[in-house]
């Protein structure tokens, strides 16, 4: 057990080091930091002195070590484009992204499970067939197109909902939230649907497939034979047993939601981290790119680590397999 956890953690650290190396290489090889720091009239001697002072002549490994140490403390320097510390930029935009991701995650889960159960129970109903067909189109539609089409229908034609921004926000402690104001909630609707739709179809299809599988199992027939009500059989027995894989997949999808937020935020001009990253790619703003790279890698590595460790705890077969191979 301990060996497995240690190996898994070592692997995660290795991944983070590789990502850090890429980020560091960006800093090191894109442009000359000295020429962007000093004026035109600086002499070569001045430049060399500054280079020495900043440690740019140090061996590669010691520079990399310094970079990793500073990154671990959240110090990524100053944005080339916005002239502000990168960490402050990211932290000030993180609440917007997390709020959006959370709301769409919950939406995707609730509606995904609901539709999945419905289409599994009423397999041949017209409503089930409609939901399944629409979900196929939903999977084929790129996220950005869903967003643009929603803006067209609900913001331009019907004028029900705003098409950009976050609306008014109020501070709850240090956290600016849009959930407590009417305009903030209205602004959240379209982006949350855009971001959650793909995950919803995914969860829905998974729940449906798992439900159909479980409903065929012997213990369900047995439960019916015992005279349990449909409700107890469907929800107490069938749904409960489909939830383990569904929760795992949903957990793994959390990272994807944050990744796809890049697209949704750009479509709706949502003031989050993803939009910041896209702009940094467009303008080759290296410090922001490097920091985002490290941040998103960390999120994914942690999520995967937790899911793997939970698997190990939940599924006894994994432990038995390992014990068997050892002897």
């Amino acid at each position, binding site marked *: 057990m301990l060996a497995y956890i240690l190996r898994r953690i070592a*692997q995660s650290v290795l*991944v983070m080091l590789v990502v850090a190396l*890429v980020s560091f290489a*960006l800093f090191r*090889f*894109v442009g000359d930091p000295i020429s962007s720091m000093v004026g035109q009239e600086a002499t070569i001697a001045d430049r060399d002195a500054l280079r020495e002072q900043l440690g740019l002549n140090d061996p590669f490994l010691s520079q990399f070590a310094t970079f990793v140490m500073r990154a671990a403390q959240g110090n990524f320097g100053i944005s080339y484009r916005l002239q502000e510390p990168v960490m402050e930029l990211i932290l000030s935009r993180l609440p917007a992204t997390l709020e959006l991701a959370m709301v769409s995650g919950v939406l995707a889960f609730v509606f995904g499970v609901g539709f999945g159960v419905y289409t599994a129970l009423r397999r041949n109903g017209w409503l089930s067939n409609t939901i399944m067909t629409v979900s196929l*189109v939903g*999977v*084929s*539609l*790129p*996220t*950005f*197109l869903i967003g*643009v*089409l929603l*803006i*067209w229908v609900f913001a*331009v034609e019907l004028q029900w909902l705003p098409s950009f921004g976050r609306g008014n926000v109020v501070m709850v402690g240090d956290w600016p939230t849009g959930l407590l104001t009417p305009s903030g909630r209205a602004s959240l609707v379209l982006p949350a649907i855009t971001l959650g739709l793909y995950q919803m179809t995914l969860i829905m299809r998974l729940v449906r497939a798992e439900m159909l599988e479980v409903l065929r199992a012997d213990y369900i027939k047995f439960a019916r034979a015992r005279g349990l009500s449909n409700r107890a059989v469907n929800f107490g027995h069938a749904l409960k047993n489909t939830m383990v894989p569904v929760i795992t997949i949903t957990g*793994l999808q959390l*990272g*994807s939601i944050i*990744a*796809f937020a*890049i*697209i949704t935020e*750009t*479509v709706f001009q949502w003031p989050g981290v993803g939009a910041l*990253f*896209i702009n*940094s*790619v*467009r303008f*080759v703003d*290296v410090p922001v*790119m490097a920091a985002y*790279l490290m941040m*998103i890698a960390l999120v*994914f590595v942690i999520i*995967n680590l937790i899911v793997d460790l939970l698997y190990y705890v939940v599924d006894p077969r994994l432990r038995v397999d390992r014990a068997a191979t050892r002897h």
Partner: protein
Amino acid sequence: MNRLGRMWDSDIAWSFRHSPVAVVAAAMALIIILAAVFAPWIAPYNPFDPSSLNLMDGFTPPGEPNAFTGNTYLMGTDNQGRDIFSTILYGARISLFVGFAAVIFAMVLGIGLGLLAGWRGGWVDSLLMRVADVQLSFPSILIALLIFGVARGFIPPSMREEVAIWVLIVSIGLSDWVQYARVVRGAAMVEKSKEYVQAARVIGVHPARIVLRHILPNVMGPVLVIATIGLALAIIAEATLSFLGVGVPPTQPSLGTLIRIGQQYLFSGEWWILLFPSIALLLLALSVNLLGDWLRDALNPRLR
């Protein structure tokens, strides 16, 4: 019986003829691909020839004569008076080129590394599969975006425009090679231990020849399925990056770029600039997706 006749009688062809969805999807994909390939001959106008453009023709609604010039356009015109139908044909050309090139790149890389891992085994295998595991835990569009962003950083600013399309192809290809590598590796390991391969080794056939002539043909079925679905994914990835403004340069607009331009005119009421490129992208992605789904089921012996 000749070769064409044998193909017509094969299981795959039979399943194709009896699946209306597959026939319709194939027809739609074929029409779009042909229209894109022959765009310079089909398109009524050349949208990239400034001398043929008339700014007075700008914002002509579809099917209505323009108020000043009296010209009529099937799908209307954009702000610069470019015929939307023609820009879609040329845009689909770029989308399809990037899509096919990225899939071929991913396929060659994936098959090559997969065969290497499966045939050699040992540390090469564990290293490649570790990398694959890590990459699979990230969504591929994020990988493509990150590779594209990092690569852009390394390219000198003066060259960014002209090499953008190649950087895009490599980024999308690198984000998708894992699928091929895993399938090919698994199949190569199974085939490697079979008697015919051992027999070939005993009589001294060169390993490269065994891998290419005996093992590779046996893994092409699943690879083809992945490539078809991968094409739809690559087209969507390209459209997404171009929509975000970090894909192909504006001088070579793909369908994603056209949708981005169309979005800017949504609020002023010129809906056709957005709608028609969106429909083209949707039809393309949907038809290729459906073909991939059908091919996967048709090649799966358990579903027969």
